[in-house]
Structures are given as C-alpha cells and as structure tokens.
C-alpha cells in the first residue's frame, strides 16, 4: 500500500515553544503551515511547567509556563485557516533525494509529506547516567515525572530522590512538593548549585537537603526502586536513602536525528549540549530547505526558543515569496541580543559563535547567508 504524499508549504516538526511561534509567524505572513507534534497535545515543555518563567517580557516572562503555551495557541487561532496541526504524529524520516518526510500517527497510521520548507523544532531529550540498576522501574527522567504529575495529574510516587541541582532538578523538586510528593534529597556532583538561587532557596526553606559533591552509586530493589545508595565525592562515604522514585535531571541534549537525515552540516558544541546544525542569522541550516529553532538548535531557554521560532517562520515564508516586513528581523534580533547579554549567557554566546555561518554571533548582526 502506497500512502498518498501530502503537500505542505511549510512543515513545522515539533509543537513546542519554538515550533508554535514559527507556525504563527509564517501563517501571519500568508504561508500554509502544517505542524506535526508527536505528543498527545501541543505546547512541548511549556505545558509541563507550573512556575512563572524568567526571560523576556515580550515572550511572557512572569507568566506560568502552561499559560504561555495558551497565549501562543491563541495567536495561532487568529490565523487558523492557514495552520493545520496534527498531534500524536511522529516524524520518523527525511529523504534528502526528494525531500519527502515520513510520519507515523499513533501506532498504525502512516503518511508522507513533501513540504517546500521545513522548520525543525524538535526540542531536547534527556540524558541518562550509568549506575547499577538504573534500568529499574522507578528510575524516571525529570520530564517523565513532570508529564505524569503536571499533565495527567498522576502522582509519580511517595518519596523521590532527585539527581541533579540544575534548574530542572530544582524546579521539578518544587513541583513534586506542590503535587504533595516528598522529596528526600537533591544530589549534585558539582561543588555548587547549577540552577538559579531563587529556586534553590525556595527548596531549602521547605527543608529539602541539597547535597553538593554527592552522587548516586546504585539504585536498590528487586523489581522496582526501593531506595538508593548515595556516595560523597568529598570523602567517599556511602549511605542509604529511602525512596520509591529516583528522578534524573542530569541534562538535556538537542533532538537532532532528523537534521542529520536532512544532511545538515552538524557540529558538536559542548556549550549548546550536543550536536547542532550550522546555521545563519535567520536560523537557516546548510540544507537550504531546512530551518532550526529552539532547544534543537542548542539547549537554551523558552524566550530565545520563541524568538528563534519567529525568525525561522518569517524567513521560511519570505523564501517562498511571501511579502514580509523586513524590519521584523531587526526587532527579533534585538530581543535575542538582550536575552543573550549578561554573565549567565556567556556560555550560549560562546557556543553560538561556533555554529554560526560566516562567524555570525546570535543576534549581534543582521545579515544572513552570503
């Protein structure tokens, strides 16, 4: 059986912060957009967050994550005749010979799309660390814990050991307590807390110990997690912590499989947390038909993901001949520049300098590919 090939002007892969902004922007410019999202709902990471976001006001900083998603969806609703969204639709492959993209909907429906342009906004996936029994049921990624409790309202367990004190580890710990789950401790191998102090302070006030220079040595249990052995990296001492869930918040890597398949030139950039595509100031990769935006372009934040999405959507529409207001690029680039100024963003700036075609530094210049 040969399924029909669907046409699309702009295909957006991934319906998170970046993808939805790209779709809205391209549709406002007049392009017909198809958004494919593998999850059962749109919004990506945003819908799993209960806290008020940091970032820029233009990108709704100060608003709770799940409400930001709602605002972008409202914007999309204003040009809904141009945008089609399909959820539970997993983009599986890209065939560079003819530019055909293959898609699975659920477990048994399959179709192909031949888009004129593609914006890849596939976000990130979680890292895993090695320790004995790390495959036991009850060792969950932080994203899985968030999905269970914040999207479906199911308590992940009674008592959680959190591994990692970056922003995700801290925020998810706080979210667990909001959901009525006990947090036994937060482990952090580094000598300092990676996430923002405001989040750490909130958690400490609630009496949860943040154990610096500690790591997990093993998960305990026969068929499910019943505890963990923790080890101090300072003095080698080990001790047991009782828990029924071990939550890993040990970092994210960009989801790049389809970018590889599309033949985009990729580069390993530690500051951006993995392999990311080389791109120009307008988010266009070395495959002329493919743009990238958001965490897939390097792990950063929602505000910059949204602005990158807007730039990508606008540029993709312009490349199809739609008339756009060129000055928008300047506005968006200024926003990126502001988001990426300051001490905490120095890593991001260093990373971007390494993947930018023509030495372009994210948001610092306005010229595209030569």
């Amino acid at each position, binding site marked *: 059986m040969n399924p029909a090939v669907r046409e699309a002007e702009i295909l957006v892969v991934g319906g998170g912060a970046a993808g939805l902004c790209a779709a809205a922007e391209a549709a406002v410019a007049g392009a017909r957009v198809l958004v494919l999202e593998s999850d*059962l709902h749109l919004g990506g990471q945003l819908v799993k967050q209960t806290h008020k976001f940091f970032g820029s006001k233009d990108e709704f900083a100060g608003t709770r994550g799940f409400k930001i998603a709602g605002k972008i969806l409202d914007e999309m609703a204003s040009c809904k005749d141009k945008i089609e969204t399909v959820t539970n639709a997993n983009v599986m492959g890209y065939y560079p010979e003819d530019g055909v993209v293959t898609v699975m909907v659920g477990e048994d429906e399959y179709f192909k799309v031949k888009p004129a342009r593609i914006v890849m906004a596939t976000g990130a996936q979680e890292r895993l660390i090695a320790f004995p029994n790390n495959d036991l049921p009850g060792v969950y990624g932080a994203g899985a814990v968030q*999905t269970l409790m914040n999207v479906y309202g199911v308590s992940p367990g009674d008592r959680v050991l959190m591994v990692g004190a970056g922003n995700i580890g801290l925020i998810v710990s706080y979210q667990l307590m909001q959901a009525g789950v006990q947090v036994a401790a937060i482990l952090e191998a580094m000598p300092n807390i990676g996430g923002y102090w405001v989040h750490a302070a909130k958690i400490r006030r609630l009496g949860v110990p943040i154990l610096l220079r500690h790591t997990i040595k093993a998960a305990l249990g026969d068929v499910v997690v019943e505890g963990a052995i923790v080890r101090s990296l300072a003095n080698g001492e080990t001790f047991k912590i009782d828990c029924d869930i071990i939550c890993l918040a040990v970092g994210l890597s960009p989801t790049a499989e389809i970018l590889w398949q599309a033949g985009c030139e990729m580069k390993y950039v530690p500051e951006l947390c993995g392999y990311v595509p080389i791109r120009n100031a307008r988010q266009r990769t070395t495959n002329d038909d493919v743009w990238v935006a958001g965490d897939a372009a390097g792990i950063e934040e929602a505000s910059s993901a949204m602005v990158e999405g807007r730039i990508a959507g606008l540029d993709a529409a312009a490349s199809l001949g739609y008339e756009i207001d060129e000055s928008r690029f300047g506005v968006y680039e200024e926003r990126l520049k502001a988001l990426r100024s300051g001490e905490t963003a120095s890593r991001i700036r260093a990373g971007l300098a390494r993947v930018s075609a023509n030495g372009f530094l994210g948001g610092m210049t306005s010229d595209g590919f030569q």
Partner: protein
Amino acid sequence: MPLIERHPILDFKHDGKVEFTFDGKAMEGFEGEPIAAALHSNGVKIYRETPEMKRPRGFFCAIGKCSSCFMVVDGVPNVRTCVTPLRRGMAVLTQRGRGSVSIAEGEARR
C-alpha cells in the same frame, strides 16, 4: 499511586472514566490519558520484561522516545504505552520478550 486531587496551581479534570484490563485484571482509567499513566495510577509500574536478561522495565521518558514502556495492547506488541491514549475496553498485557505479529495477521490489519 494515587491521583493528585489538590494542587495549588493546576486543576485536573479527571473525567471520562473507562474500564480496561491489565493482564486480565479489571482496572479503571480516564479515556484519552496515556495507557502508562492509567496503569501508574493503578499502582502498576512494570510494563515489560526484556528479551535477554529478563529485567523488568517501567517507563522512563514518557514522550515516546526510549522504548522502555512497550506493552501488548489488544494483541499488538511494542505499543508505546506512554503516548498511546487509553480507550474503553482495551486489553493491556505485560510484554515478555520482543513480541511477534504473524505476516497474515499484519496483512489482515491493513
């Protein structure tokens, strides 16, 4: 594990209760939620057994990327239960090994 009934910020609807079975036992969940979430709220954390080492597997990523949550659903093996919506009357089985579908069966499903 119980459902979250009270939350300072989120409001969970938890409606559309449906029945399904897990390894033959009757259970209840909510229509449209992922099968794995429904099992979890019924206290079930083990979804399959690995082919070689016979290790128990639960879920890990919950976004359909890691293959940890494969189960046999209505006779079809390797269903990603973390992203497959629950429907009334589904028969969900712990998956042991790789699972198989005969070619005839596969053809018949088309």
